[in-house]
């Protein structure tokens, strides 16, 4: 291979450089590799390099095997939501100066990323209702776990109460981590009723409780005032951690920080990022001022340069692994910079007026869908209150019905059987998300298809 399109060196460059180095061949540069471990040529059984066109064909063929959400009536949520993302978002994040930059460790030539992060932190803090926010985490599930660890460090207690309405993947992540950190987690599975488990959580808080983790809106789409829960936590010197998996909701309903949650984490995917089969996403994390020293992850802060001009730098980095090593607040190294940028641009395009309007449309569409679907024979709406996602009780196992509907070209929602396998009491539940991308025809198509499939099951 003389040249491959991404490799600029020519054979004569290589020869000239070897002579400067004083090596006879490239093999001489690998002398420190023990002979037994040296591979003499390309690894057998793998194909050689391919043209752009050939690779594009291969990848396109794989992409075609998936059902594209935008091609069908689509109602899936449960932690990942399909929203319309303005075209300028994707254009801007593909500017090479954002896309191909590194972490802004040299602030003089990274003010673009740094100012963006400062704006992002402010937008997130205001949205979540917290004093401050960090420069993002990997995703909502890992941010949720980090918040539990943070509560342990602050309260010096290690029993966390997790709401039964918390996304089961988030619970699963926390359970994995808790095995290794010595935290005790109290968890449960949700009940198919309109009420959340706030009262049970309030009753469960005791002097050993480090934190209560509550999702808002919860996995079934239910919403409840968090104020009494925050009060109950604080009375026992525990922290309230609120988890928001659908940030668009906060354009319509009160922010958890406003209701005195101490730490608010979230999944920011809804704005700017897209579905992407689950990642990369962007974790949001905000808290009260007094806890910033216990926050994991990166912070961007304002300062001035030698000429007195305003500028931004990464700051408070003594909390982080590259300085604190084994004493760091977390081993997290990166953030989710480009996704945070997409979130921030989308939020800037929306602004307060746009976000509220978008949230209003989501809620109105969801109300319309809930009313229509509740009229399908055999179907009951579980929720009294919801934002853009609600749960239906289909009266029979939802999971096979979701599969049958998918075969008929309707992606109807997420069955609770998928999320809580083996939990018979939840098997009939179907969680339906309705965003601004859903049309009246989509709702009608779903209602009719659901009626048909349920009718066939009954017959």
């Amino acid at each position, binding site marked *: 291979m003389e040249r491959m399109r991404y490799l600029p060196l020519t054979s004569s460059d290589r020869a000239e450089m070897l002579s400067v180095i004083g090596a006879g061949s490239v093999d001489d540069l690998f002398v420190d590799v023990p002979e037994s471990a040296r591979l003499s040529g390309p690894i057998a059984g793998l194909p050689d390099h391919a043209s752009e066109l050939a690779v594009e064909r291969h990848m396109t063929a794989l992409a075609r095997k998936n059902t594209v959400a935008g091609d069908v009536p689509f109602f899936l949520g449960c932690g990942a939501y399909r929203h319309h993302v303005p075209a300028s978002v994707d254009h801007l994040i593909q500017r090479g100066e954002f896309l191909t930059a590194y972490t802004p460790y040299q602030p003089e030539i990274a003010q673009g990323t740094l100012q963006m992060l400062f704006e992002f932190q402010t937008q997130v803090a205001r949205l979540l209702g917290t004093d401050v926010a960090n420069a993002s985490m990997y995703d909502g599930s890992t941010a949720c776990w980090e918040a539990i660890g943070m509560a342990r460090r602050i309260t010096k207690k290690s029993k966390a109460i997790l709401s039964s309405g918390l996304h089961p993947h988030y619970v699963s992540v926390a359970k994995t981590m808790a095995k290794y950190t010595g935290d005790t987690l109290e968890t449960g599975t949700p009940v198919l009723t309109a009420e959340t488990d706030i009262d049970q959580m309030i009753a469960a808080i005791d002097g050993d409780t480090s934190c209560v983790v509550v999702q808002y809106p919860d996995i079934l789409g239910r919403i409840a005032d968090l104020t009494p829960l925050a009060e109950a936590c604080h009375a026992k010197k525990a922290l309230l951690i609120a988890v928001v998996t659908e940030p668009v909701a906060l354009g319509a309903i009160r922010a958890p920080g406003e209701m005195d949650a101490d730490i608010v984490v979230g999944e920011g995917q809804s704005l700017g990022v897209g579905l992407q089969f689950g990642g990369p996403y962007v974790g949001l994390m905000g808290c009260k001022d007094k806890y910033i*020293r216990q926050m994991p992850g990166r912070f961007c802060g304002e300062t001035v340069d030698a000429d007195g001009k305003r500028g931004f730098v990464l700051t408070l*980095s*003594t909390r982080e692994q590259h*300085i*604190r090593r084994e*004493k760091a607040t977390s081993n997290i190294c990166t953030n989710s910079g480009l996704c945070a940028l997409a979130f921030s641009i989308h939020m800037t395009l929306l602004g307060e007026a746009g976000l509220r309007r978008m949230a209003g449309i989501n809620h109105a569409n969801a109300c319309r869908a809930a009313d229509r679907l509740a009229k399908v024979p055999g179907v009951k709406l579980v929720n009294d209150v919801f934002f853009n996602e609600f749960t239906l009780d289909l009266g029979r196992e939802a999971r096979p019905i979701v599969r049958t509907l998918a075969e008929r070209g309707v992606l109807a929602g997420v069955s609770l059987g998928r999320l809580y396998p083996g939990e018979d009491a939840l098997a009939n539940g179907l969680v339906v998300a309705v965003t601004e991308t859903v049309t009246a025809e989509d709702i009608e198509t779903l209602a009719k298809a659901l009626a048909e499939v349920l009718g066939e099951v009954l017959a």
Partner: protein
Amino acid sequence: MSRYFTEDHEWIDVDGDVGTVGISDYAQGALGDIVFVDVPEEGRELSKGDEAAVVESVKAASDVYAPVSGTVVEGNAQLADEPALVNSDPEGEGWFFKITLSDASELDGLMDETAYAAFVAKL
């Protein structure tokens, strides 16, 4: 009142059974601009050599050890707002915490001002 120093650059002034602890002028100079100090809360029990406080410059965090065993009676709250006091007045206003001594004999192993100056001169 007498002042003692440790090899880890803490100083302690002893007045009766209460000691006031800080870091030396040499230490603050070596650390550079101090941006944050985490002082122990009142009531904390410390054994000699325990990590008692953390002092941070922009790029480094350093532990401050208890020069003696005892109970913390006060942390210097002023340092929360003005960590720069550790740079400007390390052996005065920039003190870290006060501690009751549970075993005064622990002071015997520490250096006096002259010995510490000689110790630092060799570093």
